[in-house]
């Protein structure tokens, strides 16, 4: 979209669940929905962070003419005349399955259980590998550490089902300034338990520029 077609002050008019809404330039579908207090569930989205798009809970169905596409609302800007549906059959199918997967992936998380129950998902058909697990690999902690705090004390290791949250080289990380931002953005509280694996033993920390 070029700036000439879409000057800064022009709004984008579209509908969410039939309700006419207007987005300011730069807003995503999710931001517009929130502005109008239309509920769309999210897990990996955080207003302070660049959207990462990992949880896919925020999907909506966007119809334009005859074409309908399911897409994450946190990443996609609306276009003029788009019809957005926040709980169509296809949307709910994705959302329910994601929640059912999460019940098996993060069985220890109360937040996830609550969220799942709100969509009628109370049990899971999938195998539970670790009953203690709470982390859903949403990436918020990695992003806040990198984008907001400006250090890279946290990262993802391995890939696919084996993907884990770790520190670079899997050793406690001197880059960590112990600010706790990661803990505060974590949607399930999983990081609370792991903070010590990130920052190491604080009492043994010395050196220039080190803050508690």
């Amino acid at each position, binding site marked *: 979209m070029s700036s000439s077609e879409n000057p800064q002050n022009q709004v984008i008019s579209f509908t969410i669940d039939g309700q006419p809404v207007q987005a300011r330039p730069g807003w995503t579908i999710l931001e517009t929905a929130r502005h109008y207090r239309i509920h769309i569930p999210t897990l990996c989205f955080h207003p302070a962070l660049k959207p990462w798009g990992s949880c896919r809970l925020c*999907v909506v169905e966007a119809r334009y003419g005859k074409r309908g596409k399911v897409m994450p609302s946190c990443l996609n800007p609306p276009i003029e005349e788009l019809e957005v549906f926040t709980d169509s059959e296809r949307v709910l199918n994705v959302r329910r399955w994601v929640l059912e997967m999460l019940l098996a992936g993060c069985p220890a998380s109360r937040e996830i259980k609550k969220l799942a129950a709100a969509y009628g998902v109370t049990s899971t058909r999938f195998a539970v590998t670790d009953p203690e697990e709470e982390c859903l690999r949403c990436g918020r902690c990695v992003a806040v550490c990198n984008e907001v705090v400006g250090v890279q004390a946290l990262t993802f290791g391995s890939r*696919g089902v084996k993907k884990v949250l770790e520190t670079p080289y899997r050793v406690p990380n001197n880059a960590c300034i112990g600010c706790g931002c990661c803990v505060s953005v974590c949607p399930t509280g999983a990081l609370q338990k792991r903070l010590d694996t990130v920052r190491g033993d604080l009492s043994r920390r010395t050196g220039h520029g080190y803050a508690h």
Partner: protein
Amino acid sequence: MQRLTNTAELKVLRDNLLQAQDPHRPIVRVCRGPGCLAVGADKVSQAFQSAIQSQNLEVKVQPLVKDTGCHGFCSQGPLVNLAPANLCYVRVKPEDVEEIVQTTLVKGAVVERLLYSDNGTRYKSAADIPFYRMQQKIILQNIGVIDPLDIHDAIMAGAYHSLAKALIEMSPDDVIRTVEISGLRGRGGGGFPTGYKWKRTVENARENPGPVYIIANGEEGDPGAFMDRAIMEGDPHAVIEGMAIGAYAMGVNQGFLYVRHEYPIAIRHLAAAIAQARALGLLGKNILGAGFDFDLQINRGAGAYVCGEETAIIASLEGRVGEPVTRPPYPSQQGLWGRPTVINNVETWANVPHIIDHGAQWYADLGAPRSTGTKIFSLVGKVKNTGLVEVPMGISLGALVEEIGGGVPGQGRFKAVQTGGPSGGIIPYELKEEFTDYHFHPPDVKPADKMELSVDFDSMAQTGSIMGGGGMIVMDDHDCVVDLARYFLRFLEEESCGKCLPCRLGLKGMLEFLNNFSQGKGAPADIDALESLGKALVDGSLCGLGRTAPNPVLTSIRYFRDEYLAHIVDHHCPAGVCRDLITYRIDPEICNGCTLCAQTCPQVCITGANQQLHTIDQDACIRCGACMDVCPVDAVVVD
């Protein structure tokens, strides 16, 4: 090498090279493609080199031995082709070389036993072999013919002629329009119109001036596929020339060849080709004196399947983790280093010189109306002739599998084909007219009783499968669809980057369902659950990997639900593949007591005296099938 300073010099060079050639000089072309190398082609090639160099051959003209790329007929490798007669020798061993030299090169006679024969017919000329006769080779025409390490050989075959034509006769916009009218669609799987992609990229660059980049996608992560490998190894100049033409059209000065690390020969051949092209002034500054600068660099992918996805390639080239990012913005808007970028598959690039050479209309008339041109497939599985084939789009699946592939070998019955690699679908043989809107039949193939599905982008998509990169696995009645779907899912679960939830946990979940089915567990309702889960992945995943991963499962449920039900309800695997559902038994009528199976069984659970009936202890049997493979009289049966 003398640098060429204008297009006329290229023509002079070509003419001189062609004139210096002796048309009667025998040429021995030894295939060193992936298939033949695996069965010892390098020894054959060495044997030829030393046989010809060491002795004083009593010949008028010294023969020339060339190592070439894949000849296509991989199941008959190592292959050797002798020009000018176009003799095709199959399954050549180093020991045969002496005889070929003495009989064919010295005396001019044919070594009958090395000819390809089928149904009692011996084929002298490669052109007569049905496998080759039905093909239409455009991209493959130089592969297996030229020496990929010698740019002169490529130039004699016409390389860089189209680049010269574009530079002097056409404006950049003419080139883009030509590609657009030709109807060329991306060969990397998606079938996106190439000319349109180029046009959009140029428009984006005009709005936002700065560099534009092009990338050739040579990642080819699909298990069993080797189309792109064959092109890069066998005719690297085709890719370079295609990219140079694209670069001219889009005002690009730097291009990248992204090739997987597991393709060392392709990388070596491309590197040599780039160096030679640079030396001749076909790459670098002021190409052919036309005032156009373009250079290429090779980057190796570390071998993750998902690194074939375009946004992951960009991340990888920029030095980030090779994980996809969400689109839009598309690479044509913000690609490499935030600049408009065109990513095309290796085979797509290799099509470009032919379009420029022969014109848009010529290309548009090839193949099917909305899928123009030809497509290369790697034909594998339960077909007699496996290998690399190039056919016009729109050919019927039956012609491809039964005529070119030679049908199912042995007693098997043709059941299905799996196209498009792990993201493709499983289409049944019985699928006939229903989805077809266009057929192509090679002249002497009767369409009536063949599998009618037209092989083109749109017809394939309608079946729920995809054309994909060109992998084609033929299945017979001894292949189980549940098992094949499980195989691909396991591959993709390994290859998922794990960034988004539906793919990371969903593939694992789908696999749990399939593992249960293959053990006869589950309820019929689970098939519906699996289908709905698959659809959630299609809609919910971030990149094409997760969005297409359920295809083998979804198509096999659509066409072979009975086979799923047989596993779950009857605890029976009709194809006799799923180990937990089969038993091996020795037929007392047939067993002659040879003891071979008892000697082979790793569990030592087959008993029976010499010349007496043997029996299998079912409790100890692990169903490895070794007895069945070794029994000389086929007395071992599977229930």
